[in-house]
């Protein structure tokens, strides 16, 4: 069940009405927990046991960590939690990748090995809820979060349906305090939430799904296209992935808000970033901050020599790439971003105090950043390394071998979308609707939604981040 399907609307209406009709906070939380599991079961009921298992392990670990035993035992319990969570993730997501990569490597060495891969499907959202759950035990271990005694609260935190399958990644210290007291409907910014939902819906259903066929067509056979069409294909993908993912996030945040809960912001106009560091402060913020706090800093962060810090950046970005998917293309995507971050740091260090550099970057910073981000997207989207190489050649060297081409007005679409995005960043569409009387707002909202549906493609395309 996806947020852009009609059945989600019916599901959410039921959740919303029953939730607010209940008075007791406990009853509401139990209701949300049941609905969250039902939401996940709509995809596969079998994997709800995995979700439950992961929660149970972390609940037990949390309780054990709360017993104030010695540091060895504490290390044992946190290691247990990390091993179980990453073990499950590794089994479902990475086992086949590592086995087939090892087999390929052995074959390359002239030692062909017959290996068996597992015939399993990837549980949707496993990367997200694993990180939700791990944040709880790590924060308890670090003393930032008290162990929670109510199992249902922890289960609701891990399985809360809005961010369950594609984020944002929610941390225990952020969410669990919100479960303590009953939410008040009068405290909810309903207008803000429904407008955010509409914005997310437009991004996903109209824009991302609208450009998806063109992107799919290009990336399926890039060799058939001209270099200009390669640019259109790659830029369309940059638009698609942003609108798809941030659209989902907007809808998730809005749905949670309507139930009285806050989720962390995940995007802050990333394509207006002026360097790659800035990009990572604006793109998938909940993941980048998670990796920073739970991986980069524990690895040593900026402490120590420059080389040591750079090593930590590269490890973090490589694992960040691998988090997205079990394929070398994702690893390269992470490596490219890691390299770009290092280049940026070196550039800052080497040009410190040089006026010409500051002046040059005033003009070049944005185009260089967006170009680097788009080059990296090629690896993120390409089916394999060979086709990524073809696209890279077309995109960077204008070397297009094929005859097929997209219509030139596609460039106008890119320009128009960029302009609307820029206006939005200037808060052009921000607040005027807040002044309208409630019935007028409701009527205008209904009419607008009906008009927006005209622009939705007939077939729903799954969210890109569902596969992660």
């Amino acid at each position, binding site marked *: 069940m996806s947020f852009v399907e009609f059945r989600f609307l019916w599901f959410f209406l039921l959740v919303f009405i029953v939730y*607010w009709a209940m008075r007791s906070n406990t009853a509401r939380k139990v209701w949300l927990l049941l609905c969250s599991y039902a939401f996940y079961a709509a995809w596969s009921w079998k994997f709800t046991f995995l979700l439950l298992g992961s929660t149970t392990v972390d609940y037990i670990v949390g309780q054990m960590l709360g017993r104030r035993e010695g540091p060895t035992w504490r290390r044992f319990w946190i290691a247990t939690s990390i091993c179980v969570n990453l073990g499950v993730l590794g089994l479902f997501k990475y086992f086949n990748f590592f086995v087939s990569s090892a087999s390929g490597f052995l074959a390359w060495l002239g030692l062909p090995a017959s290996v068996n891969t597992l015939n399993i499907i990837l549980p949707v959202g496993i990367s997200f809820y694993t990180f939700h759950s791990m944040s709880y035990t790590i924060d308890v271990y670090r003393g930032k979060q008290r162990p929670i005694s109510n199992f249902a609260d922890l289960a609701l935190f891990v399985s809360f349906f809005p961010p369950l399958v594609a984020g944002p990644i929610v941390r225990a210290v952020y969410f669990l305090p919100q479960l303590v007291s009953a939410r008040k409907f009068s405290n909810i910014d309903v207008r803000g939430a429904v407008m955010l939902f509409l914005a997310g819906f437009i991004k996903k259903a109209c824009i991302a799904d609208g450009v998806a066929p063109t992107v799919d067509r290009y990336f399926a056979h890039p060799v058939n296209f001209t270099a200009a069409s390669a640019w259109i294909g790659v830029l369309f993908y940059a638009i698609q992935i942003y609108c798809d993912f941030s659209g989902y996030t907007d809808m998730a945040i809005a749905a949670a808000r309507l139930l009285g809960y806050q989720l962390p912001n995940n995007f802050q106009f990333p394509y207006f970033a002026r360097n790659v560091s800035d990009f990572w402060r604006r793109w998938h913020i909940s993941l980048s901050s998670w990796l920073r706090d739970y991986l980069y800093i524990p690895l040593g962060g900026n402490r120590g020599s420059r080389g040591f810090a750079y090593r930590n950046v590269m490890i973090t970005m490589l694992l960040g790439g691998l988090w997205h998917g079990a394929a070398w293309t994702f690893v390269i995507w992470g490596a490219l971003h890691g390299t770009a971050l290092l280049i940026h740091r070196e550039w800052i260090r080497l040009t410190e105090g040089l006026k010409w550099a500051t002046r040059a970057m005033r003009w070049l910073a944005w185009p260089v950043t967006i170009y680097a981000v788009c080059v990296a997207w090629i690896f993120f989207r390409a089916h394999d390394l060979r086709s990524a190489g073809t696209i890279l050649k077309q995109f960077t060297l204008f070397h297009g071998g094929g005859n097929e081409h997209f219509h030139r007005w596609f460039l106008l679409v890119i320009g128009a979308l960029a302009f609307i995005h820029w206006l939005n960043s200037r808060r052009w569409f921000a607040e005027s609707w807040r002044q309208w009387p409630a*019935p007028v707002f409701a009527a205008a909202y209904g*009419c607008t939604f009906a008009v927006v549906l005209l622009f939705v493609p007939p*077939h729903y395309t799954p969210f890109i981040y569902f596969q992660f």
Partner: protein
Amino acid sequence: MPVREPVSKVHVETPAPHEPTGRKTAIRALTNIGIGAAAFLITCVGLRVVLPFPEIDGGVSQKFRFFDAHKDEFDTLFIGSSRVYFQISPAIFDRVTRESGLPTHSFNFGIGGMYLPETSYLLEQILNLKPRNLRWVFIEYDELQTKWSPENQTSQRALYWADWKRVSLLLRKLTDGGTDPFWLPNPAKLRDIVLRQEDEKNTRSLLTFYAGQFEKNYTNVARAADVLGYFFGRDTKGRRASYLGVASDGYVTRPNRMSPNQVTAYERGLAAAMAQTGTHPLSLYAVEAYRQCAQEVRNIGATPIFLITPSTTQINVATEGTGLTGVVMAFNNPRAYPSLYRSSVRRDGQHLTKSGAEEFTRIVAVNFVELARAGGIK
């Protein structure tokens, strides 16, 4: 002079700002939800009224627009799948009928991959154009299809016909709900679907799919393209001709023949189909759909004729006791029509070559004239 006594100042608390009670908040929220929902529905209905006929691939729009422009010129209409599209030549049909003293002017509204319930919707739309001179409507007679090929599921083609009349028929068939106007799913079937019994694996996804199509259809999903197409995307001559055929009668030829391997497979399939004993009637849902079609055709003063084409998958379709008030012209008997089942005139088990199609059209026309003369078409 009286002395004014000092008055003690009484502190009066300013009233607290009015806070709506939970009940009032709920009523207000529900009212606004109601207003929003009503505005949404009214806008959807309004847009549905003003939007043009959708742009549907496969020639649906081209044929519909052409027929709309020439609706009063035709008195005979053929509607159905590719088995009608590529196999009924209006030019030959009209020549035979003219030579037999019963002149007609026919149009082929066959569309590749069009079965019930799409046929029934499109026929309704055609009849809504009020073609004044239409006298005979040949409707391909086949089972009500509940399955769609995945490639067709992603296009407007799988959406534009999904109104309640069509979707309810599909839901009734999928849930064994019967054909009564007021129906409920069969509880046993529903239980199997909910519990995901092995043989009902696909039914659940089909139910979700059709419910989704119905919602999308009534909320005008993806119709912006039709507006743009209406103003900017008029057909080119070449594109129109590719669907309407060289004679602009809706007939397009497909001349290719089968390879030796295909011939072997075809003959094996034909023999297997002919070896099966007994016939099977169409489902009561298909019959109900055809009954509705027949009624609509009669409502404009025309006569429905049901047509079973020479296809190996239809050999065992029952032609007697169909429960329909209309003629069923059946060509699904290889023994009665051997010339239509020879491998030399077949493209595959379903379709005829150009020469086969011409032969089939002649036979249909001759049968039609004979029936009409004998007063068999009512």
